[in-house]
């Protein structure tokens, strides 16, 4: 259930934040990140609708494939790799995920993003939200936190990571063409990553663990 809930809630929130993400992307890119994400997650939510909800890996894989064929731009392959990476890490996981499983998944997802996009921390990309989230989640899991707690820690780390992109000079993606002019702006992909993690915290926070 929870993966579906996560994706549907994400679709709704991305639709709400569509214009804001477009606007952030217009400042240092081409103004389509909100539209791309809203389109992709609407398609992913529709795709999961009615599908079996007891196989997180299969669901995450379907989300990844759908994002790959509906988002386009940079975010499409990156979030596609993210979800496919998560799915692969959870191949053998059961219907219900614990903090350790989510930690493994987020690590694999972030690794997928980095494999595809070759971005390092500090390049002013979604990686700057994903890696702090990965680390926070791993620490929380190791400390024995509940999944809800661990995801909240990850979401907060992602928020902080996104905010920390403001002073950075972009080195990857479209924003890198701006050189110095990219400084002083939030990276839209980092913001959407943080939003996805906050939504995960909400989805699993509400779900019975």
């Amino acid at each position, binding site marked *: 259930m929870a993966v579906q809930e996560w994706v549907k809630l994400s679709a709704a929130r991305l639709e709400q934040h569509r214009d804001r993400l477009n606007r952030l992307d217009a400042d240092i890119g081409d103004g389509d990140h909100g539209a791309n994400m809203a389109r992709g997650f609407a398609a992913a939510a529709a795709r999961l609708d009615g599908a079996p909800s007891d196989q997180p890996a299969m669901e995450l894989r379907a989300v990844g494939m759908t994002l790959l064929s509906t988002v386009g731009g940079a975010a499409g*392959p990156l979030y596609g790799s993210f979800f496919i990476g998560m799915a692969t890490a959870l191949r053998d996981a059961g219907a219900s995920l614990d903090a350790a499983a989510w930690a493994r998944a987020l690590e694999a997802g972030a690794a997928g993003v980095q494999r595809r996009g070759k971005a390092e921390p500090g390049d002013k990309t979604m990686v700057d939200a994903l890696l702090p989230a990965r680390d926070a989640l791993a620490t929380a899991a190791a400390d024995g936190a509940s999944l809800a707690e661990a995801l909240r820690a990850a979401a907060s780390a992602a928020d902080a990571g996104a905010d920390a992109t403001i002073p950075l000079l972009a080195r990857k993606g479209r924003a890198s063409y701006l050189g110095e002019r990219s400084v002083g702006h939030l990276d839209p992909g980092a913001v959407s990553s943080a939003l996805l993690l906050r939504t995960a915290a909400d989805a699993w926070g509400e779900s019975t663990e």
Partner: protein
Amino acid sequence: MKKLINDPEAVVHEALEGIALAHGDRLRVSFEPAYVVRADAPVRGKVGVLSGGGSGHEPMHGGFVGPGMLDVACPGAVFTSPTPDQMLAATQAVDGGAGVLHIVKNYTGDVMNFETAAELAVAEGVEVEAVIIDDDVAVQDSTYTAGRRGVGATVLAEKICGAAAEAGRPLGDVAALCRRVDDQSRSMGMALTSCVVPHVGTPTFELAEDEMEIGIGIHGEPGRERMKLEAADAIVARLVEPIVTDLPFGSGDGVLAFVNGMGGTPLIELYIVYRRVAQLLGERGIRIERSLVGNYITSLEMAGCSVTLLKLDHELTSLWDAPVNTPALRWGA
């Protein structure tokens, strides 16, 4: 937002319908997934030439589909790279057994989507070579960045590779020619106004009445520098100077000079720009052997222009001159 459109979300789809209706004699349009393909594809034994990218750059790429140029074009959403499933279907549609060249503009999104598509195509048994076009001197080329953008040289590469494929050259040759066109081309663009992405509804950036952006790409993104508006001759110098010094182009070189409109600038102004380009090259002893002036790789209704120079050699010139029969570029046929 003042546009001749119906639903902002339906712009690409409806424009594709228009293209299908207007050019149905020589093109076919697939809608799910979206691509524009030669009516006679696949051509047996011929290398397929595929390109694609966000929409909003018309006539590129769909207007360049036809004998002597592209076999198929994949349009994405406005300014958004198309997706691997489109590219895979398009690749299969034009595979005549000799493999398919993917001409990819160097944008992170395009590159990653094309990479995925090529993996999928190879898994399906189609030979694919991808060449990345990165001719925009406005962007610093460095291993620490996404590298230079692909702009005007894309049009030239599509024409030249299309001619080579039409002549029966093998995939390796056609890809090598594509790399040569990219290596020997440099471009730079500028904008007088922003453009409005239909689903956004407001200008991507705001420019005062006396400002311009120098070093723009083709997605309505801001340029390298914002400065006071200048006379055309001064602007042209700002474009030509970095192009000429980058390759470098030198005295005695023969070039193709391409003055491209961004969509909202009238032709009369593009000829004023071309005039100055020709004068500046003349002063440096660079011979213009071929020229192209018009709106070929645009950013919706953005006002502005770009200049592309390609250093010609005998082979490139004769491939440029070869017949081409597409909606937007046609001669000898």
